[in-house]
C-alpha cells in the first residue's frame, strides 16, 4: 500500500497516520473489509491525504472528493454506518490538518464531505445494484442448471427403467411398449419377431461362473446390436439369455430366414476372453404375423414356443412358427391340465382284451386297457394321454387307480369260475421308480381285495433304463416275490439288451405286434420263430400281440408260440362282456 505524500507545507505523515487510525477505529465493525488492520489504516491514510489536497486546492474545487467517495466503497468500506462515522471523524479531524491559515475552512470541509457523500452513496447504490444483478443472474443460472440436472436425472431414471443395466439394450418393458405402440399405430402390415435364446450361456455360467457368463452375454449383446443396427431392426434383451429383434413388414419368409441365418452365424462365433475361448450357440424362434388384430402377449407366447421348438431341434437352429403345431401343443397342454381333474372325477375306465392259449384257445388272461371318458372330447384312447400323464407325473396316481379297478375286477371273475383269467395291467416307468410305493400298493390291494397274486400280472415296457437301474431291478424282484406275474411288453420294439433278460424276474415275453403284422404266409424271413425260441430258452412263455387272422394264429401255433392276443381272438371290451364270455365257457365245461 502506497501512502501518497501529504500536500507540502501543510502537515507531516504522522498527522495523517493519526487521522487514518482514528478513522479506522470509527468505522471498525461497520462493514466487513477484507484486509488486515494495518492495511486498513494505510488505505485510509491514502484517502486522508487526497482529501486534504482537495480541501486545500487553489482555486478550491471539492469535486475530486466525489471520486474518493466512490473508491471508499470500492475498497469495501461500504455501509451507511461507515459513511456516518466517516463524516463524523473527518469533520473533526480534517480542518486541524489543513491548518488555520485557510479562511472559511469549516465551510470548505462541509463542501468536501458533501462531495464525498455524493460519491459514496452513488458507489454504494451501484454496488448494491451490481450485486443484486449478479445474484439474480446466479439464480437464473442455478435454475437452468437445476432444471437441466433434473431433466438429465429424469432421463437417466427413465432410461434405467427401460434399459438393461448389463448390456445397455432396451429391456422387456421397453420392448413390450414398442410392440404395443406398433400394433396401436397400425402403420406396419406385418410384424415378425426373432426370439433369440443364447443356448450356450447356461453352460458357460455353470462352468466358469457369473462373471464370465456376464462377459459372454455382453459380447453377444454387442454383436447382436451391431447386426441389428446394420439391418435397421430394433433389438431388446428380453430376459436372462433371451433377446428379441423386431422386424416390421418383413419381405416374406426367405427374408426372415436370411435374418435368422445371419443372427445364428453372428452368435455362433466363439467369444474370446483373457484366458478362455467360449464356444457360443443360439436358437431362434421366428413368428411372422399380420398386425391387424394382433395381440402382443399372444405373439410373444408364440415366439417363446417357437424358440423351444428350435432348441429341441439342436444347437444353432431356427424355427418358423407353425400354427397347426402350436394348436396341437396347446390342445396337449389343455389335456394335461384336465388330467388331474379327470382322475378325481373317475373319468378313466378299463376295457379288457382276452389273452388266449393257442393250445386250446382258452382265455387264460385279459389285458386291462385304459380309456378316458373326457367330458368334452368324448372317449380317448391311451395314445392321447398316457405320455402326458407320464410327463406331468399324474401317471402314478392314475396307475394306482387303474390297478385298484383291475384287481377288484379280477376278484369278481375269480368268484365266477374255477379257472379265472389273470388280469394284466400296464405299469409305467415312473410307477416303477416309485418302487416302495408301488410295492405297497400292490401288496395292500391283494390283501384288501383278497386276490390271489398269480391272478395279477404287471406289464412293463421294455426300457433302456431298467437293466442299468438297480433300484428298478429290486422293485421288480420284490413284486415277483409277492407271487405277482411280470410280463415284458412290446418285446422287440425297443432297445433290448438281451443279456439282462436272463436275470429279469419276468414270466412272459409279449412279442411286439409289428412282427405278426409283417409276417406273410409267403415270408421267408421272419424273426417270430427266433423270438419264440428266445422266450422258451429263457424259460418264459411267449405271447404274440396283434393277431388278426386265422392264418397268423395257425402259423404262430406251428412255431410253438404259447399265447396270443389280437382282434382275431377278441377286441378290448367291457368287463361285462368278458364276464359273459367266462360264464359261457364255464357252462360249456360243465
Amino acid at each position, binding site marked *: 500500500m502506497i501512502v501518497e505524500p501529504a500536500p507540502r507545507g501543510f502537515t507531516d505523515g504522522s498527522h495523517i497516520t493519526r487521522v487514518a487510525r482514528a478513522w*479506522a*477505529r470509527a468505522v*471498525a*465493525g*461497520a*462493514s*466487513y*473489509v*477484507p484486509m*488486515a*488492520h*494495518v492495511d486498513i489504516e494505510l488505505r485510509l491514510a491514502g484517502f486522508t491525504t487526497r482529501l486534504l489536497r482537495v480541501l486545500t486546492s487553489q482555486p478550491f474545487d471539492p469535486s475530486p472528493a466525489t471520486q474518493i467517495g466512490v473508491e471508499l466503497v470500492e475498497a*469495501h468500506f*461500504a*455501509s451507511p454506518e461507515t459513511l456516518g462515522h466517516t463524516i463524523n471523524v473527518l469533520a473533526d479531524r480534517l480542518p486541524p490538518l489543513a491548518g488555520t491559515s485557510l479562511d472559511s475552512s469549516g465551510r470548505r470541509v462541509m463542501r468536501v464531505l458533501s462531495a464525498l457523500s455524493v460519491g459514496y452513496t452513488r458507489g454504494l447504490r451501484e*454496488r*448494491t445494484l451490481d*450485486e*443484486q444483478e*449478479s*445474484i439474480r*443472474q*446466479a*439464480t437464473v*443460472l*442455478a*435454475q437452468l*442448471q*437445476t432444471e437441466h*440436472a*433434473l431433466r438429465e*436425472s*429424469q432421463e*437417466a*431414471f427413465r432410461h434405467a427403467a427401460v434399459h438393461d443395466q448389463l448390456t445397455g439394450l432396451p429391456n422387456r418393458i421397453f420392448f413390450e411398449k414398442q410392440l404395443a405402440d406398433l400394433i396401436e399405430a397400425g402403420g406396419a402390415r406385418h410384424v415378425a419377431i426373432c426370439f433369440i435364446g443364447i443356448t450356450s450361456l447356461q453352460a458357460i455360467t455353470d462352468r466358469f461362473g457369473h462373471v464370465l457368463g456376464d462377459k459372454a452375454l455382453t459380447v453377444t449383446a454387442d454383436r447382436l446390436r451391431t447386426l441389428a443396427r446394420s439391418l435397421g431392426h430394433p433389438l431388446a434383451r428380453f430376459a436372462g439369455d433371451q433377446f428379441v429383434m423386431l422386424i416390421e413388414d418383413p419381405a416374406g419368409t426367405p427374408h426372415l430366414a436370411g435374418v435368422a441365418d445371419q443372427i445364428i452365424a453372428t452368435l455362433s462365433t466363439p467369444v474370446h476372453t483373457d484366458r478362455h475361448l467360449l464356444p457360443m450357440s443360439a436358437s431362434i424362434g421366428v413368428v411372422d404375423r399380420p398386425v391387424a388384430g394382433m395381440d402382443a402377449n399372444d405373439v410373444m407366447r408364440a415366439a417363446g414356443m417357437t424358440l423351444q421348438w428350435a432348441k429341441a431341434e439342436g444347437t444353432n437352429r431356427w424355427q418358423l412358427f407353425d400354427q397347426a403345431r402350436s394348436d396341437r401343443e396347446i390342445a396337449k397342454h389343455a389335456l394335461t391340465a384336465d388330467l388331474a381333474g379327470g382322475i378325481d372325477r373317475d373319468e378313466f375306465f378299463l376295457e379288457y382284451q382276452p389273452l388266449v392259449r393257442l393250445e386250446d384257445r382258452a382265455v387264460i388272461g385279459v389285458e386291462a386297457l385304459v380309456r378316458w371318458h373326457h367330458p368334452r372330447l368324448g372317449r380317448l384312447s391311451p395314445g392321447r394321454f398316457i405320455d402326458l400323464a407320464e410327463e406331468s407325473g399324474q401317471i402314478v396316481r392314475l396307475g394306482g387307480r387303474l390297478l385298484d379297478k383291475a384287481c377288484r375286477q379280477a376278484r369278481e371273475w375269480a368268484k365266477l369260475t374255477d379257472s379265472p383269467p389273470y388280469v394284466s395291467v400296464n405299469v409305467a416307468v415312473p410307477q416303477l421308480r416309485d418302487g416302495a410305493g408301488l410295492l405297497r400298493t400292490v401288496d395292500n390291494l391283494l390283501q384288501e381285495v383278497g386276490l390271489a397274486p398269480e391272478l395279477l400280472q404287471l406289464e412293463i415296457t421294455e426300457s433302456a433304463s431298467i437293466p442299468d437301474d438297480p433300484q428298478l431291478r429290486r422293485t421288480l424282484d420284490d413284486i415277483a416275490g409277492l407271487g405277482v406275474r411280470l410280463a415284458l411288453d412290446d418285446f422287440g420294439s425297443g432297445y433290448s439288451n438281451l443279456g439282462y433278460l436272463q436275470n429279469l424276474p419276468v414270466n412272459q415275453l409279449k412279442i411286439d405286434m409289428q412282427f405278426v403284422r409283417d409276417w406273410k404266409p409267403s415270408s421267408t424271413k421272419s424273426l417270430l420263430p427266433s423270438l419264440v425260441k428266445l422266450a422258451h430258452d429263457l424259460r418264459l412263455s411267449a405271447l404274440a400281440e396283434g393277431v388278426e387272422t386265422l392264418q397268423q394264429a395257425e402259423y404262430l401255433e406251428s412255431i410253438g408260440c404259447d399265447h396270443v392276443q389280437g382282434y382275431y381272438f377278441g377286441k378290448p371290451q367291457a368287463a361285462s362282456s368278458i364276464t359273459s364270455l367266462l360264464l359261457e365257457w364255464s357252462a360249456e365245461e360243465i
Partner: protein
Amino acid sequence: MDRPEWAPPGIDVERPSAARLYDYFLGGSHNFAADRAMAQQLLATAPDIPLIAQANRAFLRRAVQMLAESGIRQFLDIGSGIPTLGNVHEVAREVVPDARVVYVDLDPVAVAHSSVLIRGQEGVAAIQGDVRKPGDILHHETVRNLIDFTEPVALLVIALLQFVRDEDDPAGIMAQLRGALPSGSYLALSHGVVDGWRHDKEMVKNLYSRTTTPPASRTRADVAPFFGDFELVDPGLVWVTQWRPDQPSKIDGIKAAKSAVVAGVGRKP
C-alpha cells in the same frame, strides 16, 4: 409432493438460506427479500450478528493466509456460501499464485454465483455438494481433477457444522473428510456455539430453522472432537477473534466471548 431421491436440489428464493443471510450480515446485497426479512428479525434479537459474521470472515482470511504461507497449495472449502469479499482463492493467491481451490456448497445459487465469479480462472472451481455426503464430495470429478490427495490439502469447514444436526453424524462426516487427507494437511474450522451467547437462543434457532439448513446447538466442548487426531496449531481452539488477530488491537468490533464462534486450525500428523 416430495422431490424424488434422484432429483437435484431445487431453488426456492422465497425460503431464506444461511449462505445469503451470511452475505447480508457481511453487508452484501447478494440476497433476496425473504433473506432480508429474516435477517431483520434476527438482528432485532441479536444485533451482534453482523459483527460475528465479520469476525468469522476475518478468521477465514487469516487462516487461509497462514495456510498459504505454510506452503499449502490446494484448498477445499466446504460450505463456501455466496462469494462475498475476500474469497479463499483471492487470499491464497496473494501468497501462492497458482493455489488451487474448490468451493463446495449445497445452495445452487451460491454455486452458480461462485461459478460466474471464478469463470476463466484456472485451478478454481465451484461444485454443488452436501457435506452430509462427504464421499460424493471427495469423489467428485472436479475435486479429483483439481485436488491431489497425495499432497497436503487445506480443508476449510467455516461456520458450516452448526448447520449439520447430530442425526446427520457430523463426527462421522468429519472423520471421513479427515481420513481422505494426507499427512501434513490442515483443517481450518469455525463453529457457532451457544456458550457466551447472550441473546435469545431459542428465537435464533427457531428463525434459522426456517432456512434450508436448520441449525444444531453445540458448545465449545462439542467442537474440539471435530479435529480428531489433528494437532491444533497455536493458539488452539479459541474464540474466533482470538485466533491470531492481526494486532492486539481494541479495534475489533466485538468482544471475544460475544463472538459465539470458536475457531481453530489443526494439522494432520
